């Protein structure tokens, strides 16, 4: 399958007064067009750093990241980031939040607004378009945040622990919801998460990172079948075994 992202041997060290912290060491990976890839790893291993590199927010000290063959040197319009908490601006209406990307790039046009409105109505938020984020439930806020990311029509979505701020029940349904929308929109997604069952339920592949400095330890390929939705996967007989295997791979010592 065609690759949308190639990460070629990147390394990154954080510099501070106290010294340098190697965050990523000689990491190579790729992301196929249209797949849902999750990145898991021990806490503090550099998952989010890797995502920031993919978003063009951090430059690696060595190595290269290619987006459809071109090196990423900064934020790119074809890459959309969905941050940890929804980061909806509380003083903007939902619709205005969704159009934030257009306001940033000065590309707010009638077409862009129509596209955003179509997304809002396709995903059941048109009735909330003129409401403020504080009037929405956690799940709806997350959906609004996803629509904001989709509204700039990126090819690649980067999700940084997108459900970690939600309570457990909401998280399961919202993850399924977001997964459905991303698949429907035929987008490629890279998600960082610390929740293994979440990763197993939505991903086509799971990248397990080593302890810091991060490098790829293993790649799990989902064998639930591509069209099994997240909630059905959680019920799948093979789910528990896959979870067990992933857990052992993570090598968590308490």
């Amino acid at each position, binding site marked *: 399958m065609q690759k949308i992202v190639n990460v070629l041997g990147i390394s990154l060290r954080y510099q501070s007064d106290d010294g340098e912290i190697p965050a990523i060491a000689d990491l190579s990976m790729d992301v196929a067009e249209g797949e849902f890839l999750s990145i898991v790893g021990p806490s503090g291993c550099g998952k989010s750093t890797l995502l920031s590199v993919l978003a063009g927010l951090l430059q690696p000290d060595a190595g290269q990241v290619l987006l459809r063959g071109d090196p990423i040197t900064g934020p790119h319009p074809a890459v959309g980031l969905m*941050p940890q908490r929804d980061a909806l601006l509380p003083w903007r209406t939902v619709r205005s939040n969704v159009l934030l990307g257009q306001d940033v790039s000065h590309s707010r046009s009638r077409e862009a607004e129509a596209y955003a409105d179509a997304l809002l109505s396709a995903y059941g938020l048109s009735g909330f378009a003129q409401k403020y984020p504080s009037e929405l439930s956690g799940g709806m806020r997350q959906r609004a945040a996803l629509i904001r990311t989709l509204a700039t029509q990126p090819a690649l979505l980067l999700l940084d622990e997108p459900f970690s701020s939600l309570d457990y029940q909401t998280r399961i349904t919202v993850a399924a919801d977001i997964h459905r929308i991303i698949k429907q929109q035929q987008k490629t997604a890279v998600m960082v998460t610390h929740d293994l069952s979440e990763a197993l339920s939505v991903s086509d592949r799971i990248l397990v990172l080593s302890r810091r400095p991060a490098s790829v330890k293993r790649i799990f390929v989902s064998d639930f079948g591509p069209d099994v939705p997240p909630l059905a996967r959680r019920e799948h007989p093979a789910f528990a075994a896959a979870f067990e295997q992933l857990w052992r791979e993570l090598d968590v010592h308490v």
Partner: protein
Amino acid sequence: MSMSDTSLSPARTRWLAAQRRRRGLILFAKAALLLGFLLGWELSARLGWIDAFIMSSPSRIAAAIWRMTCDGSLFPHLLTTCAETAAGFVLGTLLGTLIAALLWWSPFAAQVLEPYLVILNALPKVALGPVIIVWVGAGPKAILLMALAISLIVTVLEVFHSFNATDTEMLTLLRAMGAGKLCIFRLLVLPGNLPAVINALKVNVGLSWVGVIMGEFLVSKAGIGYLIVYGSQVFQMDLVMAGVLLLTCAAALMYRGIVLLEKVLIRHIR
């Protein structure tokens, strides 16, 4: 829920009645405190417990205000002081926010200037009064500068700190969308910190009054501050007390105005 609602439980009715009683009592106590104070003052003066010439009395203050209103000397003084305060307040807020924005813009400048800002903040600005008068002359300019000297640094520090405490996740989001500094400031930092700016406004109103009265004490040409100084020099305590009373009312009114402005602004950005 209205009181005529028949579905109210007896406990609810009792609770509502108790609440109403309590609110009424608080209002009554507030009024009683003021009236009692004024009455006590007046009586003490009339009965000769205190020297009305030195301590003045409510009736003498009222008479002084009435006299000045009639001979037309009150209004110009009041207007002068209010205009100076408003100007100092607006200038201090705008300039302070602008400087805070520039410091946010350039972390280098912020780091370089930080110790100077801290020292200027600690300096009792009143000490600059004579310097200001020598530099710009004893006039409205000196009064305005005094008001600015007192309110500006506090505004800068307060607003700058809130600008710097902008939600990092929202910053990351905007940067990932390719936003530059100006764009981040316009879309996130300024609207997100409007409550902090308004809070600085509230502090600023009080400080502007301090600065203006201080300036009027020093310049002594017109205004309520001048009335107070003049009154004390000719030993007319009625005049002094009238000045203080007018000042209290004007400051309270201006503060009310800012609270109103806050409500309007917050509704607009919310």
